């Protein structure tokens, strides 16, 4: 069955395969829509359990088991990659929902000329320009020979001849625009850390004093002011080497902070197991669905 779905298809076979899948999908949706609400909820519980059971068994069963002279591999592992791909494809369909939401909100903003309508206009300009250039750059890449271009249809030849332009504009929009803006916003973190530290490192309570002291030691341990001027006179192989500023800073980071981080991670891991168990066994009722199930 895996080979049936994994076999590459081309031309009319591909079109027919996609059409058949779409028809079956909508038929199943239609049948589910006709079923009573209680059946839908029970089906959700069963499907959730089966899906969770697959991943749990795939994790618990060893990759290889030796039974006598035979080596038996985990039969569930071979389905993991196709399932992940299927989940990714399903998830990517949801992107259309997100785009619809963006269009609705920004479209209303623009059409009703509400305050900040310029942001809606900027969204549409950015969206369509990026979409256009990305698609042109993808479908008409550079590097095609004149003979390859001559084999295309006339309209496609026109676009293929402008491949350098599409790539140029794509680079401007993506690397010059999007990436640069992302880096700009990321760089704001430096200033935000300073402002957050200014507010946080005040002597208000014992905990705040400890925080301030630890932060000062860490900063001194990472800069020449602390490592050279304060404790640079201590020889690395002497008995007092542990008192060097960088050693104290490292001790705070790896021992104190490390222990606290591990404690948090233990709690998070156990909490994750408990929450996953509740959702897998559909015990998490009333949170995302009706109370009655």
């Amino acid at each position, binding site marked *: 069955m895996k080979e049936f779905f994994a076999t590459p298809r081309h031309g009319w076979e591909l079109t027919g395969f996609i059409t058949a899948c779409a028809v079956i999908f909508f038929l199943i949706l239609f049948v589910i829509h006709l079923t009573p609400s209680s059946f839908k909820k029970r089906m959700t519980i069963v499907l959730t359990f089966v899906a969770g059971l697959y991943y749990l068994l*795939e*994790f*618990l*069963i*060893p*990759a290889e088991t030796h039974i006598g002279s035979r080596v038996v591999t*985990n039969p569930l592992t071979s389905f993991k990659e196709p399932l992940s791909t299927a989940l990714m494809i399903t*998830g990517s369909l*949801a*992107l*259309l*929902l*997100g*785009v619809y*939401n*963006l269009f*609705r*909100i920004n479209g*209303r903003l623009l059409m009703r000329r509400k*305050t*900040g309508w310029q*942001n809606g206009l900027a969204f549409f300009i950015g969206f369509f320009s990026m979409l256009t250039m990305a698609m042109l750059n993808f479908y008409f890449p550079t590097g095609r020979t004149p003979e390859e271009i001559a084999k295309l249809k006339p309209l496609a030849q026109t676009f293929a001849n402008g491949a350098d332009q599409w790539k140029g504009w794509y680079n401007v929009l993506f690397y010059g625009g999007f990436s640069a*803006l*992302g880096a700009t*916003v*990321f760089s*704001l*973190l430096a200033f*935000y*850390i300073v*402002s*957050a*530290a200014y*507010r*946080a490192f005040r002597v208000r309570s014992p905990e705040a004093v400890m925080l301030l002291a630890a932060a000062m030691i860490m900063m001194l341990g990472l800069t020449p002011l602390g490592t050279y001027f304060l404790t640079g006179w201590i020889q690395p192989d002497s008995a007092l080497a542990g008192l060097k500023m960088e050693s104290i800073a490292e001790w705070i980071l790896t021992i104190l902070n490390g222990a606290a*981080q591990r404690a*948090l*991670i*233990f*709690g*998070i891991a*156990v*909490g*994750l*197991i*408990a*929450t*996953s*168990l*509740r*959702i897998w066994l559909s*015990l*998490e*009722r*009333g*949170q*995302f669905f*009706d109370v009655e199930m």
Partner: protein
Amino acid sequence: MQHASWTVGILLALLAGLILYAIFTARRGKRLFIRRIPGLNAIDEAVGRAAEMGRPMLFATGLSGLDINGLQALAVAGHVARVAARYATRLILCVADPQLYAIGEETVRDAYQRAGRPELFVPEDVRFLSDQQFAFATAASGVMFREKVSSNFFFGYYYAEALILSEAGQSIGAMQVAGTPATTQLPFFVVSCDYTIMGEEYYATTAYLTREPTLLGSVVGQDWGKIIILLLIVFSTLALSVAPNANWVKYWVNLFPAG
């Protein structure tokens, strides 16, 4: 770890068994105690503040996708939406995952309906901003500034955008409550938010807010599991300190491989 070793399997079964036992014990009517978590008590305070000021609230789920962290964030959003409906206050939910957007819209709509105020639900207040990290941070910050929100809730899995969002909220004087299992972002939330829910408290949020027996039992089961892990740590530490070269200690350590 691609596949579990037998020790991991036993430990997992033990933890799951304890959690399920606690859940079913709670369902049979046993009263369970859960300690006070100030950050969660502050949710009502934050919503009340928004109602008094007549300004909306913002709930951001960070970069959480359709996973346990995202669903937990939406569960909290549902509770906040119910309280918001009671006070007739507007809640703007911002998500970075389109799948979470679909579930979030239903969660908030359902919350308003269960509070008896379905007419207050505005579909445009549930927004998919972007799945890109800094585009999401910028858009959410923009929502904060334009809508002049009075309270911010940051629940979910966060990365570097955590500080950008919380500092943007600080700059407009919003009351901020954050909860994330991301240990790397906890320090930023602690310094820039009024209340921070850390680590396992994040997964105990729904139990604390709803006091439902199933959820309370799950939290108690988690604590039993943590006691087991603590005993294992103490035993292993003592064994490695007292007899590090003993064969049985080496065998014991090899039972729990690093990865």
